[in-house]
C-alpha cells in the first residue's frame, strides 16, 4: 500500500513541550507469540472492564497489517481527526472514557492491504506513541500483532522512558500456541519488560445444547506455563460462541453489549488482578 490510500494523514505539530504519554498513569501491553489466540479480544474486554470500573482508558492498536480493534469496538467507519495538540483518538462514548487509535481509522477502504516492511511500521508506531492526544488516561492498553519483531521492539524502545507497567500475555492451552508464547515470555525478559501475568483464552467450550465441556484446544497449559516461568496466572476464559456474534451483530456495539455477555463477570477478576499488579486500586 502506498500512503496515498491513507486518508490525508494529518501532520501533527513538530514541537511539543509535554509528551502526550506523560499524562497516562499506567501502560499495559497485550502480547502473545501466537496469532489468533485472542489478543485483541482480551484487550477489548480488559478495556471495557476497566471502563466499567470507572477508569479512563485508551486502546492503541499497533497491529498495522491486520488491525482488528476498530471492528471490536464497532468503530469501523470512524476517522481520526487532527487538532492543534495532535491526532484525536476515536471515542466510543459521549463521556470520552474510552479512546481508541488504530491504523484501521486511517485507511480509505477497510479492505486495503497495508503492505509495509519493518522501517515503515516502526515509523508509524513512533508516530502513534508520540502524536496521539490521549489526554488524561488511567490506562493505555496496547494491542500488538503476533511475534517478537519490529512492532514489539519499536513499542518497547519508544516507551522505555515512560516505564510501562508490564505485559499481559495471552495464550490458548494447546502446545503449539504455548511453544510460541514461551518465546514471548523470553522476549519480555530480554527487553526487561515486566510480565503482569498470563491469561488462558479459549479454555474449553461449553456446548450450549448439552452443557458438556469440550476442550477444543486442550486445557490448563497456560497455567502450567505460568508456574514454570514463575509468573502470575491471571485466569482462564472459555470459548463463548456468542462472542463473535456479539461483536459482529449489526446495531449497537460490543461496548454496550459487553455487560450482558457471559464473559464480563469472568473478566472482572482478571481486570482486578491487572489493576492490583499495576499498583492501582479499583
Amino acid at each position, binding site marked *: 500500500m502506498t500512503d496515498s490510500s491513507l486518508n490525508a494523514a494529518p501532520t501533527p505539530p513538530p514541537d511539543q513541550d509535554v509528551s502526550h504519554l506523560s499524562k497516562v498513569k499506567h501502560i499495559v501491553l497485550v502480547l502473545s507469540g501466537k496469532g489468533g489466540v485472542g489478543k485483541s479480544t482480551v484487550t477489548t474486554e480488559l478495556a471495557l472492564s476497566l471502563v466499567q470500573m470507572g477508569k479512563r482508558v485508551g486502546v492503541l492498536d499497533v497491529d498495522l497489517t491486520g488491525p482488528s480493534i476498530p471492528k471490536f469496538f464497532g468503530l469501523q467507519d470512524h476517522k481520526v481527526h487532527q487538532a492543534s495538540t495532535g491526532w484525536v483518538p476515536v471515542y466510543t462514548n459521549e463521556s470520552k472514557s474510552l479512546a481508541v487509535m488504530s491504523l484501521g481509522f486511517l485507511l480509505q477502504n477497510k479492505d*486495503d492491504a497495508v503492505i509495509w516492511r*519493518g522501517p515503515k511500521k516502526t515509523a508509524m508506531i513512533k508516530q502513534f506513541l508520540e502524536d496521539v492526544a490521549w489526554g488524561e488516561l488511567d490506562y493505555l492498553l496496547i494491542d500488538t500483532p*503476533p511475534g517478537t519483531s519490529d512492532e514489539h521492539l519499536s513499542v518497547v524502545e519508544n516507551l522505555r522512558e515512560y516505564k510501562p507497567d508490564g505485559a499481559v500475555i495471552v495464550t490458548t492451552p494447546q502446545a503449539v500456541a504455548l511453544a510460541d508464547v514461551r518465546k514471548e515470555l523470553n522476549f519480555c525478559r530480554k527487553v526487561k519488560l515486566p510480565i503482569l501475568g498470563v491469561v488462558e483464552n479459549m479454555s474449553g467450550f461449553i456446548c450450549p445444547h448439552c452443557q458438556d465441556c469440550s476442550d477444543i484446544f486442550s486445557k490448563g497449559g497456560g497455567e502450567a506455563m505460568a508456574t514454570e516461568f514463575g509468573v502470575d496466572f491471571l485466569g482462564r476464559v472459555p470459548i463463548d460462541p456468542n462472542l463473535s456474534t456479539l*461483536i459482529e451483530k449489526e446495531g449497537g456495539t460490543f461496548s454496550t453489549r459487553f455487560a450482558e455477555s457471559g464473559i464480563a463477570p469472568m473478566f472482572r477478576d482478571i481486570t482486578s488482578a491487572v489493576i492490583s499488579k499495576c499498583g492501582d486500586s479499583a
Partner: protein
Amino acid sequence: MAPAKEDVPADAPEHCPGTASDQAGKADSCAGCPNQQACATAPKGPDPSIPLINERMADVRHKILVLSGKGGVGKSTFTTNLAFALSLDDAVQVGIMDIDITGPSMPKMTGLEGETIHQSNTGWSPVYVSDNLGVMSVGFMLQNPDDAVIWRGPKKNGIIKQFLKDVDWGALDYLVVDTPPGTSDEHLSAVQYLKESGITGAVLVTTPQEISLQDVRKEIGFCRKVGVPIIGVVENMAGFVCPSCKHKSEIFAPTTGGAVKMCEDVGVPFLGSIPIDPRIGKSCDLGESYLDMYPGEAAYTAYMDVIASKETNYVEGRPRVLATVDTNLAMYFHRDTIVRR
C-alpha cells in the same frame, strides 16, 4: 517534474531520484524523506542471490504459499496436512518451508522438535519426516526451543533468502511455504525472491467470522498487488460438533456469510470448509498426521475434498494425490481466470 521512473513511490517527495538510482537517499530532494536512510543504505542493482535461488528452484515444480491475514486460523495446520497428504504418494517429493521466523510451528507439528539442520557441501539439508517430506524452519536452528527470535525485518529477510538459496531441497514436486500472519517483510521477501522462478499460487486460510475475513480480504489485496495467483480460500474451524450430543455449534459464527460469501464478493475460488475437531489440534501438538490417524472422520473428508476433488481421488481408501492435485490446481487456475475476467 518528477522523473518518470518505475521505482519512484507514489508518495515520494518531488524530484525523487527513484529507489534504485545511484542518487537514492543522497539527492537534495531526499532531505527530510522518511525513507532517506533506507534508500541511501540499500544495495543497488539486481540482487546477486536471485540467480542462485532460481537455480535451486528450477527443480521445484510447484511452489505453494499458505497465507492468511489473521493469526491462529490454521495456516500451519493446513500446511502440515497438505504436505502430509501430498507425501502419501511415495513418488511425490514434498518440502515444507516455514518462514514464520518469530513463531515457527512446523518442527512441533511435524514431530521434528529437537532436530537440527545438517550441512553438506551441497548446502543445508532439510530435516526429513519421511523419505519424501523435508522440512526447513528457524525452529531447527535454536539451541533452546523457547528462545525468542527477536529480529527486525532485514534479518528475517536474510534468513528467508538463505532458506531458498542455501537449502539443498533437491528435486521437489511441491514446496509448501508456511507464512506468518500479515502482509509485511516475510511475505514481500518470499514473493520477491520467488518471482522469477514462479509461484504456483497461494492458498488463503481463514476462519468463518468477520474479524478474520476482514484480514483475509487484505491478504487477497496483497496477492493481487504483488501478482501471486490465488488458488483459493479454505475456511477452517467451521462449526464444532459436540462429541456428547452431536449438536453443531458455530464457535466462530459466520455472521457475514462466511468465506463462501466473501469468495463470491471478491471473485476468488472457494476450496471448502473444514470443521473443528479437537483431535486435529492434538495431532498437531503431538506432531502426528491427522489424516493418517483418523481416516474417514468428517474433518478428514473435508481436508481431502479441499486437497483433491472427491470423486476421482479415493483409491482403496487413499487419495491418489499426485495426478489429481495437478489437475485440481489447473482447474482452480482456470476458474480463477474465469472469475477475474
